[in-house]
């Protein structure tokens, strides 16, 4: 067993991190929240140049193959930087279309998505009825409970999320172009769902890491009672606990990326989602009142943590899945 990243994988993560580090992401997030997707799209096209969007598309359609580990590494970096937009949903849509093995659908959508020229959002059966960022995405796919895949028509105007950079739309129940139907669609949707959950877990991990890093910096520099607040044991312990939770979520995310079975993926999402939400609570508490203002960039991550913890499987749903996957099948 070699549970370490290859040099190539680490390099990929590093490339993304440095690209995002110099990309003024917070400004793009704020614009996105205000309904101006321009700066976010510009960021997406720079990300596309790294090959990020090709990681959920087969080679036959301009992709790099379906590479969940590499894509998860990417999502950690996107979460760390706070990149806006339906990255997870785009990738899941690619997986859905790839799994369907319908050449004409694949030809029509996948190359554009692989190259990052197009983006997608989607809703899948059993999940949230709200499609994130449908107003900014090129495509909005829906799969119904009955296994009908559609390219949804223009969804109703976005509803406000507690994270303003997640714009939620309710796609029309069965409007839009019918693309495919049948048990094959349901099966493909199941696979896409697992990817969405895994990638959200990775994104949560990145969000949590960003929250922790910023809070550690703040605790070193903010003084009260004539000393940096980081020297108080109550502050130290909370930060140490935050690191603990994130570091034990990380191996679960990597393991799930290596073998994306339902139980592994649910465990990863549970641990990463909770760790990142707890990191947000710690960050807020230790920043005091400045942390409670939207002016500080920290708020961009604080507001992401809760919706991402619940997206593509709440902790409770993930726990149920973990247990289900362990139950020996009998009948």
């Amino acid at each position: 067993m070699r549970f370490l990243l290859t040099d190539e994988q680490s390099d990929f993560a590093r490339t993304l991190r440095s690209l995002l580090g110099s990309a003024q992401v917070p400004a793009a997030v704020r614009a996105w929240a205000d309904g101006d997707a321009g700066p976010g799209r510009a960021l997406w096209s720079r990300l596309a140049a790294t090959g990020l969007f090709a990681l959920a598309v087969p080679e036959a359609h301009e992709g790099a193959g379906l590479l969940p580990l590499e894509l998860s590494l990417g999502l950690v970096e996107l979460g760390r930087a706070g990149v806006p937009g339906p990255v997870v949903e785009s990738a899941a849509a690619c997986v859905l279309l790839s799994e369907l093995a319908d050449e004409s659908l694949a030809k029509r959508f996948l190359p554009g998505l692989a190259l990052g020229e197009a983006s997608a959002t989607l809703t899948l059966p059993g999940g949230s009825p709200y499609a994130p960022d449908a107003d900014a995405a090129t495509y909005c796919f829906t799969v119904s409970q009955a296994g009908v895949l559609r390219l949804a028509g223009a969804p109703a105007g976005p509803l406000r999320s507690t994270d303003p950079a997640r714009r939620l739309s309710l796609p029309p129940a069965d409007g839009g172009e019918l693309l495919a139907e049948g048990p094959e669609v349901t099966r493909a949707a199941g696979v896409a769902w697992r990817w969405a959950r895994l990638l959200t877990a990775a994104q949560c991990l990145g969000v949590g890491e960003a929250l922790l890093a910023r809070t550690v910096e703040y605790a070193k520099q903010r003084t009260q009672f004539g000393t940096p607040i980081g020297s108080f044991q109550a502050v130290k312990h909370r930060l140490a606990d935050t690191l603990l939770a994130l570091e034990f979520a990380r191996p679960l995310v990597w393991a799930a990326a290596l073998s994306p079975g339902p139980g592994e993926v649910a465990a990863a999402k549970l641990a990463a989602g909770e760790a990142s939400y707890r990191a947000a609570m710690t960050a807020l508490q230790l920043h005091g009142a400045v942390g409670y203002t939207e002016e500080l960039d920290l708020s961009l991550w604080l507001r992401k943590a809760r919706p991402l913890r619940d997206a593509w499987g709440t902790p409770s749903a993930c726990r149920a899945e973990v247990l289900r996957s362990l139950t020996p099948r009998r009948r």
Partner: protein
Amino acid sequence: MNLAQTAEVEEFRAEARDWLARRVPSSPLPSLETAEGFAAHREWEAQLHADRWSVVSWPEEYGGRGADIVKWLVFEEEYWAAGAPGRVSQNGINLLAPTLFDHASPQQRARVLPSMASGEVIWAQAWSEPESGSDLASLKSRARRTDGGWLLSGQKTWSSRAAFADRAFGIFRTDPDTPKPHQGLTYLMFDLRAPGVTVRPIGRLDGKPAFAELFLDRVFVPDEDVIGEPGQGWRIAMSTTGNERGLTLRSPGRFLAAADRLVGLWHGHGDPSDTALRDRVADAVVGARAYELFTWANASRFAAGETIGAESSLNKVFWSEYDIALHETALDLLGPDAELADGEWAEPWVFSLAGPIYAGTNEIQRDIIAERLLGLPKGRR
């Protein structure tokens, strides 16, 4: 020990319940953290005041009903159970008024309290400064002596709803040369529209323009607006922080009502097989009851003439953590709808997140509990 109320108290309860049933707005007012909501709440408070329900515990001469603490708690229970709006005057009523009752001159009380009770003048608390949060005594804003009063200069911040409020109260350094930071401070009131005051709103986490930062440049305050003796500001301020942590800010009535709504949500949305969530709903019910009974125990002690000291820190930590747990449970029950910012639980959830920060952070409260109630050695601070 006896949990039953007297007939007189029950009569008072019935009167309040009846009034509220007839007058509480049928649809919720806009958020009081916005300009629009501020105006709507002001009107509501004027209605409350017209029938002397805005400050039931105050003496009648200031618009109250002279209700004792028992009746006040009963009123709060009825108020929140009726789904009545949050109080935009809360800073004045809960924080400044007790200080005025304890430390102000009769003239000051006569001048300030009636317009506070009617919602005509809404007060903001101007204590914190950018560098002085937990360590409030390190504050630097100054009040310098001038003819007939004082000139305020400096910066205050995170003043709740100061963007829309009329006046503010705060502590200022009047003598910078004292050996200890807690000395040489003076407690006073000032007009937020006076020359020299600049109010800059600061968006909250949910974007509502609730806080403001105040820049003060030689703002004149007449002597009549100084509370107590100059130089005694710290002692005066500390005599009322207990109110903020303790009973008045978070009456049990509010949590009983919230727990009740949560139970309703459970019956509507709950999945009976999700026992973990069911347990948390039950915990919220039990928590509200515990808080209610703890409060009654304290109230009984007040009524018997005792005072409450560091125990108010127990109260603070409990209600703030309870509040978050209750709202998180509601969000978990709502599933995908939890993230809708316009949902019924979103704003109260975001507000609950601030509970462990304001009114003295919970880290500081735990230190107080450990040192003053458990007698543990004082830490480095």
